[in-house]
């Protein structure tokens, strides 16, 4: 097994394949290709080649028990996210990017205490309803 510290940072194309694997779970090259090609045109052989390289790098694991090889991400999403977030540039501009964030949640994370309070509020609401 590869040393986690030595696992290379995935390229953008590799990250896309990892995203599919994290989203859909272990999948064949054909499955991955069908998901990718829904967003952008992609050749099956390109995806196959990429995934073979990723297996060599240790980014994905290959299960060769069945006729169609089944791939899965070797690291959980959170691990890779932390790896990517460690990038200096990412950190430098994360704050600036967050001010442009438009979405359901604020850019700033809630603290543990706040999360606990949120949970409590939801529970109390539930009890009130009853």
């Amino acid at each position: 097994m590869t040393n986690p510290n030595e696992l290379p940072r995935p390229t953008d194309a590799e990250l896309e394949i990892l995203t599919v694997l994290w989203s859909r779970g272990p999948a064949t090259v054909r499955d991955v290709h069908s998901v990718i090609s829904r967003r952008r045109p992609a050749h099956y052989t390109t995806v196959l080649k990429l995934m073979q390289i990723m297996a060599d790098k240790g980014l994905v694991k290959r299960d060769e028990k069945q006729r169609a090889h089944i791939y899965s991400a070797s690291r959980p999403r959170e691990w890779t996210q932390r790896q990517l977030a460690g990038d200096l540039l990412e950190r430098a501009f994360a704050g600036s990017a967050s001010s442009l964030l438009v979405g359901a949640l604020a850019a700033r994370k809630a603290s543990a205490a706040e999360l606990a309070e949120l949970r409590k509020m939801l529970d109390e609401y539930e009890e009130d309803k009853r």
Partner: protein
Amino acid sequence: MTLDYWIASPLALALGRALAHFLWQGALLAAALRVALFLGAERSSRWRHRAATACLLAMPVAFGVTVALLLAGGGSSVASLTVAPRMVFDPAISQDTPAAPVDWLAWLAPLWIAGVILFYAFRLAGWVRVDRMRRRGVCAAPVEWQQRLRALAGAVRVSQPVVLLESCLATVPQVIGYWRPVILMPLGALAGLSAEQVEAILIHELAHIRRADYLVSLAQSLIEGLFFFHPAVWWIGAVVRAEREYACDDDVIALRPNARTYAAALTTLEQSRWLAIQAAAAANGGNLIGRVRRLLGESAPARVPSTRASALAGALVLVAGVAIVLMAWPAARSFAQAAPPAEAAADKQSPATEAEPAVRNIEELEKRLANKQKEIQEAEQSVAKAQELLQRNSAQLDLSMQNAGGHTHEMAQVEEQLRQAEDALKQVKGSQVGRSQEMLQQQERALQQAANQVQELANGKLDEALRTQQQRLARADMALHQAWAANGEKSMADIEKQLQQARNQLERLSESWSQQGDSELAQAQPPEAPRPQTATESESVYQKWLNEDIAYIITAEERRAFLAVKTDADRDQFIERFWRRRDPAPGNGANVFKQEYYRRIAYANQHFASSVPGWKTDRGRIYIIYGPPDEIDDHPNVPRQLWRYTQVSGLGDDVEIEFTDPGKTGELRMTAPPASHGSYWQVMVSVSDAAGSVARSLQAQGFPAIPYPVRADRPSLTQVLVGPYPDEASFAKAKAALEAAGFHPVRAQ
């Protein structure tokens, strides 16, 4: 240096002042929004969001209008804007008191621009990063969710096609883009939430798209970057963000009334994000608690936490205070300095205030004196600059004189004028000290004008015009030359006319040039130093040309023709043609003959000068007429020099000319006829005719001729040697020819 210039510009000052004004304008807008939010506490979040956005948008508008007013109105609008806050503190101050110029405020402008650029650079990098999230680490969401999204988009009335993607980089659901919007769901959110909850989140994001919140957020970023220094902007920005989320939450509840499910979905998302990246826990979270409390129908949350509200209020009061001080201080200072003594005396009758007018008068005088000294300094600087220009000008003139020897008279004239202007400027500068201030002012003004004019002279426009004219003239002259050759008298007359026109034009230009110089001198020069007449100057210039420059090569006919010419324009024309006739390749670039001729003069002056200029010496004369010898036998101790020419046109082959110094005068002289194989005829030349011109004339008639001094001690009395003739027959024939031409040849010894 450029920054200094820019600082002095009206724009910099207007920007600086507008920035100072914005301190209170921003505070005022924030206060207005606070009041509006307080009054509209029961209003919808949509209304409150609009109010906050309007306030935010009003900021650049207020700033822009202020800048425009300051730029357009200048003093008056500044005064009116400045007086308003000042009145609060001192109603006694009259509105008519003009605000003193606040130059240091202009320095705010570059600082502000630097800050804005920095902010924008970061925001741009952030935007690039966000936009990259559209493509990086994403995959298409499952088909069933795409279909659900299309149905929901219809319900929320979003018309543009929306793409739903799962992202491994996004930690929270978010919208990117407006025209081609993308909804990013964090990986696992679609699987980890119930279908109902996912729908609620999607409605929230679709509401953002319909309300164009991404665009608003970009605009907000720009405005925040523009007024980064003002807390009011950040506070209003926070209000906009908060109310934006409330408004979208309201849209969700309108479509999916189960608030608890939605609140739970938000909480779950927040929790999963918290788990996703184990970063240090933020000290205070976003506004999620407030939102959930609001969704669950608890008491309306305090829109702004009280501690933050008081801090904000403090900051705003501080900013407004600074603004008022900035506005009022220069005005108060100017009031203290410039208020008329009578007003001050009327205020109070204490001895201190009575003394004030006198003090002020002294201050005023000191200030004036300082200004005056500064003006003198500036004038001196401009004089120095003018002198520099003059020097450069004369250097240029020197250069062009070498290049265009035929126009030495013009150049010399202008050079002389410039030199005189320089002298005059020096005199004026010298006489400045010790005169009265009024005199100084007058002198300075004159100097300034003179400097300006000298500058104009130096700007080369006239030079260029002259050059153009000269070129035209040269062309016309060439045409004339050709026409002459063709003997086409009619066309020649036309060309002559054309030439005359060009010449007149040139004359006018020269006139305007010299007039400019004259007026400049008239202004710069003290009246007691009269300037030499231009006419004599130009006369001497032509005289010099005739008797010095081309004395050795002009023919007798040409000389007579030149002396018959009356106007300077015609003389110029003559000189131009004189050179044109000798140009080996007319119209083909520079006149090689002329260049070589002036080079020889320069060489002679440099190498043969003794008590007389080099060109006047025997060696100089021979050098100028026949060029460098092919060989020189130099015996400096005797002293004796023997020059050998293998071939001299018009003189013969293997000519040897001996120069010695029998009288020990320190100057080598031609003491014997050039040694050659044959005999010479001597032709005496009257003093008024230059030997060179006679020699040339003889050469033109086919005689081998060379100018030759009669006596070593009287170089002005010259003769011309004609020869050598190798045999008696040709010698006798030459004598007959010379006599027929009106000379009286004598056999040379």
